[in-house]
């Protein structure tokens, strides 16, 4: 469903994403992990067509994101790190606007709106202005916005960041429900979340893929945390978890 091949993105001298390749099959939930600044958001922005790669290709549902951008973009729902809300619009007006620019037919919008409002638990806030909503509701409206046009592919950039534990559980189960009908790419820092929600994991570090595997293969006898720290310390000259632990003990 998503084919990322030899993706590279350079900003001047800085290489944010370096020769990244991975694939996600239909209906799968991919956990996309990596330390801050490792190129997760950049990769997701390229997959969604927000910015082009310096080289490499991305295919979404068989369409090249650069050459057949329109067809690909119609099939993607994207929740950026900060939910892209217009703060002066009501939730309903905002979701209707998104449905329209995603190219939905006029007749389908009312039903789609009902569907996402129920699915994301927004019934109590549909007529409120998004600027006045709490962080949890903003995140849910962001998710509703990503799924309103029923896209085949969902790209979610840290969807649970800043939420309280109950909200995290709600959003997580929502994402789990979405799998199957949708293919999901999910970036996060919360490793237990990945263990619970995802089937496959890609870990990138300093712009390169260090691990791409199914979660069952990775966690045999080890926790995902260990796998993660091992993977990123191979690549980086920074102190490993072990050293950091020693330093803390010394203090």
């Amino acid at each position, binding site marked *: 469903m998503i084919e990322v091949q030899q993706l590279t993105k350079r900003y001047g001298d800085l290489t944010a994403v370096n020769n990244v390749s991975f694939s996600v099959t239909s209906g799968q939930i991919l956990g996309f992990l990596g330390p801050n600044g490792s190129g997760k958001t950049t990769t997701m*922005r390229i997959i*969604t*067509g*927000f*910015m*082009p790669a310096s080289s490499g290709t991305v295919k979404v549902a068989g369409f090249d994101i650069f050459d057949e*951008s*329109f067809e690909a*973009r*119609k099939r*993607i729902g*994207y929740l*950026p*790190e*900060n*939910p*892209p*809300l*217009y*703060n*002066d*619009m009501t939730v309903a*007006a905002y979701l209707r*606007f*998104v449905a*329209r*620019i*995603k*190219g939905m037919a006029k007749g389908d919008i009312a039903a789609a709106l009902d569907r996402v409002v129920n699915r994301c638990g927004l019934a109590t806030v549909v007529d409120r202005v998004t600027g006045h909503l709490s962080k949890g509701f903003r995140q849910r409206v962001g998710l509703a*916005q990503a799924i309103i046009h029923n896209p085949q592919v969902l790209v979610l950039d840290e969807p649970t960041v800043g939420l309280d534990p109950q909200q995290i559980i709600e959003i997580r189960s929502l994402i789990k429900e979405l799998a199957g009908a949708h293919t999901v790419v999910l970036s996060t820092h919360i490793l237990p979340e990945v263990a619970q929600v995802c089937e496959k994991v890609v870990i990138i570090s300093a712009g390169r893929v260090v691990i791409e595997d199914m979660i069952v293969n990775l966690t045999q006898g080890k926790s995902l945390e260990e796998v993660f720290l091992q993977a990123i310390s191979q690549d980086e000259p920074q102190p490993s978890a072990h050293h950091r632990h020693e330093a803390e003990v010394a203090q």
Partner: protein
Amino acid sequence: MRNVFTIVGKELRSYFVSPIAYVVLTGFLLLGGWFFFNLLSRFNLLLSLYMQMQQGGEAANRLNLNDYVVAPLMHNLAIVLVILVPMITMRAYAEEKKGGTYELLLTSPVRTGEIVVGKFLASFLFICIMIGLTGVYPAILMKFGNPETGVIVSGYLGLILLATVFVAVGLLTSSLTENQIIAAVSGLVATLLLYIIGWPAETAGDVLGPLLRYLSVTEHFAEMVRGIINTRSLVYFASLIALALFLTQRSVESLRWR
């Protein structure tokens, strides 16, 4: 086309659900009313002075509402527009970039051209409403006097074209930054420059002089206020608007090749 209307609708709605539209409209009408009141009082004073003078009737005949009230009113409103329009347009792109909604727009199946045209049309409609509301002043004149309608219409067309140029320029500066203050200030500098660029024309020599005069938005606007609609002026307004829209489209698109 449908995407254009969707964006126009969203933009216009955001003007009117926030206080922006009401503050701008009130301010514009307040200043317009002040100008109109003062110009009309001055006109009345002159008229009664001339009438008292011997043979003042002839001089009073030369006084007319078009030259003494409508024309200066239009020029005053133009100056207000120089300042207000960049403040109306400053948020168009800058706010989207800052608020993260730019990502939503640019990852949707919408052409950059449609975004640019949609935002332009929305601001254009807004300034039409703004300028249209000042129509009460000439309407009052027509109720109680007899100004020449043709000249007023031509002046209003000029005012709308001038404001449309400012809108296009303001949208361009907004598309270049994510900071609304920078967008407003650079927009103001650009519109002000267009307004004053003709000032040194008289002493600038035979080549540069006419060129500066042609580049000045004031020059073309003043002709239309006098009731002269020139193809030359229409070409000037149209090409400035088209150029600014084209550059805005490039600026939005540039994200894709940076």
